[in-house]
């Protein structure tokens, strides 16, 4: 809503500066998005009158106009416009004036300099609306009102300040000038001057009959009638106000309906009475297959159920949304049927949405127009029509108000003000704050029985009244305190706590946290499978991996109304997004790209919200940079290290890495991460090198490594607080053990055997060398470990350690056919 202060001053005196008024309105909930100064750059521009027009001697298209601008000197100016006549009042800009360059694409203000046009010297200009910044019209000269004061600086006469309101849906009442004026009056204490309307009743007028078939969708329909009107342009002052409000003048009748809508907030519609069959208005739902050509010339198919205004022959308007072309007011119209109605907001909203046809009228109806307003606005408009377009009128031609609504009274208790605001406000003060806003009330002790003014449909409960009082008192005046109530019981949620801890681990391990889009599409996710490979996996372990962290076989949820097809599906996998991120970054640099993300996937559950499983996903490229650019290769073990770090942080004791062949990964460099769950091993994730074909599909042109863990499952298995063990005060015995055995035997087996044989005194076993090559027989490899023995309560002697060591060696020989190296 654009509020012209010039216009506003008709209803209330504005005593504050525009900026201060804008501030006060904003603080009170009527947000002023912008204060626009109209004509702030005008100077040396005056109201002038054309005293003479002559053709330009050297150019057919130009004219010479002599203007009187209240001074003795009457300059002669050159113009290309043809819409002017003697005696017209026009804006006259003299040298030094600042004008908008109408021929420039950008609104550029330029100083008017002397010019010679086809041999005639011009020392000024008569101006178009565009040159003055008053609109886009550059066809002709802006013709001022004949009453415009001759010689007055244009700034004084046409300069204006526009407050551009950004209204929230609850304050649509401020789509009306009088209601904005009421706010200003309440804020500044200046008296409100509301327009007074009266009814005109010329007898023996043709009939208007109104028949509301859908009283739930149309609470009231008031009609007025004017005959013998003359269609023409509306007066300049009205056009100026419409332009200031951002509306285009059309003709006197349409302009009046728009003007009164802007003034009171009641949308009006004018029909050519002679095109309404039998003068009968029927408010009903559209029937299947009905059509209507709307004012914009579009023929529209109406859905059954849309509310229409019809005559006995069919629909003539989309109620509250747009009029029909056939009954439009044209230059030939002599009889006007004026509609002022109150339509159901939901119905209007649905029709507007279905036809994508927003209008000033639909906007107001959607947010609610009180039925009581209809006759007031109608009478106001009829008065204007008679005054401006002439004719004879019957304001009250018809008024159907099927079920008049009673305004509820709302109780406001002094105690509620204190309770909700934290500030003692006497009920009498509250009453004083409500009165200028148009609220009426009865006081009973410390309570008010309040009736809201008809335009305030948003006020329906005590809390609404509390806000009214608070905003008038000023939010700034409410004290600033801290809650004094009891502290609620609260246990931190493990998922969030562990998410934070897992993030710390990953950051510590050198990964950058990414946040990728949760919306994607199936093509982008299916890149995780080599071409032609089914998402349905038959082998147990790969299938368990898929079910835990890569459920490509699950049908994802799609959006009904995606913004783009790229992001129309809720992802079921996270890895695709991170591989996209990896590729994206590898294009800029080839080393040191390590990302992780902890975020959900959405797994559909029939009839319920999807399961939002939170996954920890990490990816890395082939290389990392160490000191001074040294390029070090990342391996399976690099990312496995991160996985182990996470599992250890979660305090998960029994985890394993089991070789797995999943199509997304390298068949021999990938492990399923399993956690012991009672008797069973449960798959909680996967770690490995990405299948080269898959990397290529993501445009990753180097080896890539990935880790995906089901965080929910890890949280379920986590051990929050590790129990303390006292460090032993007794020295350790440290021994190395190197063995040679079949290269096929997993190292994990060696550790298991050593641990089993070592018993409680074997504190740790740490690998320090893996060797395969000429020093050992073909098909064998050597593994070297550091064994640490320690007793918690005594110093071990060599004999004890030797016994254990011999037992370990024996066990390794027997079980794994290993030899001491």
């Amino acid at each position, binding site marked *: 809503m654009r509020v012209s202060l010039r216009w506003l001053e008709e209803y209330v005196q504005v005593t504050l500066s525009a900026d201060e008024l804008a501030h006060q309105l904003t*603080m009170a*909930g009527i*947000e002023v998005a912008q204060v626009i100064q109209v004509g702030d750059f005008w100077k040396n521009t005056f109201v002038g009158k054309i005293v003479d027009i002559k053709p330009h001697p050297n150019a057919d298209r130009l004219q010479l106009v002599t203007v009187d601008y209240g001074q003795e000197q009457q300059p002669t100016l050159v113009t290309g416009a043809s819409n002017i006549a003697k005696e017209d009042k026009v804006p006259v800009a003299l040298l030094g004036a600042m004008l908008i360059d109408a021929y420039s694409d950008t609104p550029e203000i330029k100083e008017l300099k002397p010019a010679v046009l086809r041999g005639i010297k011009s020392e000024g200009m008569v101006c178009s609306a565009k040159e003055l910044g008053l609109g886009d019209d550059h066809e002709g000269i802006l013709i001022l009102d004949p009453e415009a004061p001759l010689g007055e600086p244009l700034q004084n006469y046409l300069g204006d300040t526009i407050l551009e309101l950004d209204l929230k*849906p*609850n304050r*649509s009442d401020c789509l009306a000038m009088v209601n904005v004026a009421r706010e200003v009056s309440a804020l500044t204490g200046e008296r409100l001057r509301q327009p007074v309307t009266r009814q005109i009743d010329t007898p023996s007028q043709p009939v208007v009959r109104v028949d509301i078939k859908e009283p739930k969708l149309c609470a009231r329909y008031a009609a007025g009638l004017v005959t013998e009107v003359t269609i023409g342009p509306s007066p300049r002052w009205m056009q100026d106000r419409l332009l200031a409000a951002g509306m285009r003048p059309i003709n006197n009748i349409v302009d009046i309906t728009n003007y009164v809508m802007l003034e009171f907030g009641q949308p009006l519609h004018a029909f050519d009475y002679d095109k309404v069959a039998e003068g009968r208005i029927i408010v009903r739902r559209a029937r299947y297959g009905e059509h209507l050509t709307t004012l914009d010339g579009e023929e529209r198919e109406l859905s059954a159920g849309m509310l229409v205004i019809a005559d006995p022959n069919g629909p003539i308007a989309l109620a509250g949304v747009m009029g029909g072309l056939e009954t439009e007011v044209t230059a030939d119209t002599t009889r006007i049927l004026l509609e002022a109605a109150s339509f159901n907001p939901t119905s209007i*909203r*649905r029709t507007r949405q279905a036809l994508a046809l927003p209008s000033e009228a639909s906007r107001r109806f959607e947010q609610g127009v009180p039925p009581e307003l209809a006759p007031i606005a109608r009478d106001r408009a009829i008065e204007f029509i008679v005054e401006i377009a002439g004719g004879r009128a019957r304001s009250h031609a018809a008024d159907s108000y099927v079920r008049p609504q009673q305004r509820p009274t709302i109780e406001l208790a002094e105690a509620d003000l*204190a*309770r*909700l605001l*934290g*500030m003692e406000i006497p009920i009498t003060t509250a009453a004083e704050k409500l009165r200028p806003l148009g609220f009426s009330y009865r006081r009973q002790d410390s309570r008010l029985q309040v009736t809201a003014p008809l335009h305030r449909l948003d006020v329906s*409960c005590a*809390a609404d009244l*509390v*806000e009214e009082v608070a905003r008038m008192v000023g*939010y*700034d005046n*409410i*004290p600033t*305190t*801290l*809650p*004094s*109530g*009891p*502290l*609620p019981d609260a246990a*931190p949620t493990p998922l*969030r706590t562990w998410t*934070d801890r897992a993030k710390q681990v990953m*950051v510590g*391990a050198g990964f*950058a*946290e*990414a*946040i*990728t889009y*949760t*919306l994607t599409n199936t093509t982008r996710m299916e890149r995780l499978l080599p071409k032609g490979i089914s998402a349905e996996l038959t082998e147990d372990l790969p299938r368990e991996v898929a079910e835990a962290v890569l459920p490509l076989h699950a049908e994802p*949820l*799609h959006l*009904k*109304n995606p*913004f783009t097809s790229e992001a129309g599906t809720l992802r079921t996998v996270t890895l695709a997004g991170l591989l996209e*991120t990896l590729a*994206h*970054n590898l294009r*800029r640099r080839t080393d040191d*790209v390590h*990302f*992780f993300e902890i975020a*959900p996937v*959405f797994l*559909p559950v029939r*009839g319920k*919200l999807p399961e*939002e499983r939170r996954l920890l996903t990490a990816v890395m490229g082939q290389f990392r940079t160490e000191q*001074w650019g040294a390029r070090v290769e990342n391996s399976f073990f690099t990312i496995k290290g991160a996985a182990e770090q996470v599992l250890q942080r979660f305090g998960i004791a029994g985890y394993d890495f089991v070789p797995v062949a999943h199509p997304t990964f390298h068949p021999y460099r990938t492990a399923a991460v399993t956690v012991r769950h009672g008797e069973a091993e449960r798959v909680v994730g996967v770690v490995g090198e990405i299948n080269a074909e898959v990397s290529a599909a993501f445009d990753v042109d180097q080896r890539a490594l990935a880790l995906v863990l089901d965080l929910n499952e890890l949280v379920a298995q986590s051990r929050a607080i590790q129990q303390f063990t006292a460090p032993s005060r007794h020295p350790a015995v440290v021994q190395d053990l190197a063995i040679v055995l079949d290269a096929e035997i997993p190292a994990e087996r060696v550790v298991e055997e050593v641990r089993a044989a070592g018993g409680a005194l074997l504190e740790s076993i740490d690998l320090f060398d893996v060797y395969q090559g000429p020093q050992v027989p073909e098909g064998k490899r050597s593994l070297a470990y550091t064994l640490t023995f320690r007793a918690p309560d005594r110093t071990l002697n060599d004999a004890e350690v030797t016994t254990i060591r011999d037992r370990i060696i024996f066990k390794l020989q027997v079980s794994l056919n290993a030899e001491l190296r």
Partner: protein
Amino acid sequence: MADETTAPDIPTQLEALEREAEAQLSACAADADFNEWRTTYLGRSGKVTQLLRGLGGLPKEERPRIGQLANTVKQRLAAALEAQQAQLRRNEHAEALKAEALDVTLPGEPVRAGQLHPITQVLNEILGIFERMGFHVVEGPEVEWDRYNFALLNIPADHPARDMWDTFYVDAEPVSNLGSMLLRTHTSPVQVRVMEETPPPVRIVAPGRVYRNEATDASHEAIFYQIEGLAVDDRINMGDLKGVLTAFARQLFGGKTRVRFNCSYFPFVEPGAEVSISCHVCSGNGCRVCKQTGWLEILGCGIVHPNVLRAVNYDPEKYSGFAFGLGVERIAMLKYGIDDIRYFYGNDIRFLEQFR
């Protein structure tokens, strides 16, 4: 008077001997030199001892004084020897260190550390502030029912306020009572979920991802983060809301930050407010960041609407609460001077690494 002729003689000699020894010491450069010097001057048959042999000729009462004097000289010389040796060792050591010289301007060894996404960092900072004020963190689902996202928040179907949120709907069968499945447009549904489960008092903050079906540009993303706050008990009021949010703004943006509450509208609160802070860039004088207003709008809030309380079976006559919701990206952008929201989900490592 014999004292006066013989006694001064020995001190003078001692003094001369000390000076001589000092001179010799300064010429010593190796261990052998020091050993020789020690023998020469301090040894059992060294020069000092020799000199003292002449003590026998002194009167008995003079002897202790001269003996003491000689001891002092000996001690001084021993100390000088030690100092000289230490100095020499230091010099040698210094030479050795010089051979180990490094160019300290070469870059240090990179510590392999990643970094949290700036959204996470700002989120954690904000949540930390509220946690210290007794709020605890709760999370809710990103895919929601209409009932929680709208209906229970006093936004019934076809309410004009629904236009405040452009909503993504999920292609799934609506469920009676719950309505359509959608991507939550705000974190406010967590309020309702918490209140449904918990009797008052309640003090929570709910961070999370939210979705808007909007075109993406420098200040709009279809996906972004919000933090919802809710406090309900038998005495919460607007003053408390102002206090909590003022404390929050000052912790986040600095102790001198001014905080302004203006009346506004969100269907689930009444009275409603918007909160602006004095621009931290220009201290409120007007600049490009605050569009010359001196103020930056940072969040929306208000007193929980009685209809919302009623919907979760809280008695609005007995209980009251406040709620607020803030956009995390907006705060991060203000804090770091980021001018395009799309950086956050571009995941460009060169952007992310700036937030180490």
